[in-house]
């Protein structure tokens, strides 16, 4: 019996309908990590993200930056700067830190 299918990746906004590569998957997870970390700080927007990537991941850095910026723009952080340090060994994709601007709410007593 052919059961109901599970569809993903559709209807998620124009920025990510241009085609998919595994850098998009990585970018989505990086953005989730940043958003999770920024949430308690009531960030208004994310300004920059620092990453460390093991060379064995074979990630195309331009692609990753493109998708990360596209996702960030969709989520209200246009122009996010992405700084990637490539480590000669390893398969890690480490989200090191992010710079955020605090929201007005953050200033309220």
């Amino acid at each position, binding site marked *: *019996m*052919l*059961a*109901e*299918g*599970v*569809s*993903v*990746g*559709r209807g998620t906004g124009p920025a990510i*309908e241009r*085609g*998919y*590569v*595994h850098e*998009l*998957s*990585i970018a989505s*997870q*990086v953005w989730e*990590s*940043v958003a999770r*970390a*920024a949430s308690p*700080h009531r960030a208004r927007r994310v*300004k*920059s993200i620092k990453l460390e990537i093991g060379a064995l*991941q*074979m990630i195309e850095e331009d692609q990753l930056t493109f998708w990360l910026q596209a996702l960030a723009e969709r989520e209200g952080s246009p122009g996010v700067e992405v700084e990637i340090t490539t480590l000669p060994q390893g*398969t*890690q*994709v*480490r*989200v*090191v*830190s*992010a*710079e*955020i*601007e*605090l929201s*007005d709410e953050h*200033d309220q007593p």
Partner: protein
Amino acid sequence: MRLFELAERGPVEIVIDEDIQARQEELAERNRQWFRERGMRAFDIAGSVGSGKTSLIAALVERLGGRHAVGVIAGDVATTHDAEQVTGKGARQVLQINTGGMCHLDARLVHQALQKLQSSLDLLFIENVGNLICPSYFSLGVEARVVVVSASEGTHVIEKHPAMFGSADLVVLNKVDIAQAVKVDLSRPICDLRATRPGVPVVRTNCLTGEGVDEVATALNL
């Protein structure tokens, strides 16, 4: 006033220090736990478009459907062709994942599909998106990864894709019947595999006739 204060304060750096690959492994482990709790054995069937992944799964389901409660998750960018090809071969449940363009399955997508799966199944084949590159970096949390490669993919296909074949637990060399016609000497890719993944078992198949499929089942201890 607040804007002035913000400008004066400037952006704030937050330390995150999270390894995304480690997060992937956590998600894969969640799937492993899910399978363990239900006594379900699951296999990732990976390989290029046209290598014969669906034909292998269909042939395995035909052989095993009588003594196992078999489920299939077919992963594709679009369409339900592969799920339809497997349907009617003896699987209890066939589920389609359309990634909408994403070039691989990952543990999170599989976990979403598992929520729709009958827990009474004891065997699950997950057909990955046809691709010899991206799926290799994403563990699904299954017992073993089977990589299907066909003779028509050329002499150097294994040498060109070390990550995928380096992650294989079993390699199925399919369409061996046409190797001579496409002028591929199968000893070369097998030699490359010995260098890339020493000791990994290899089974030669023609999944359309069923040649070698019983050996695949045996290699997976099914």
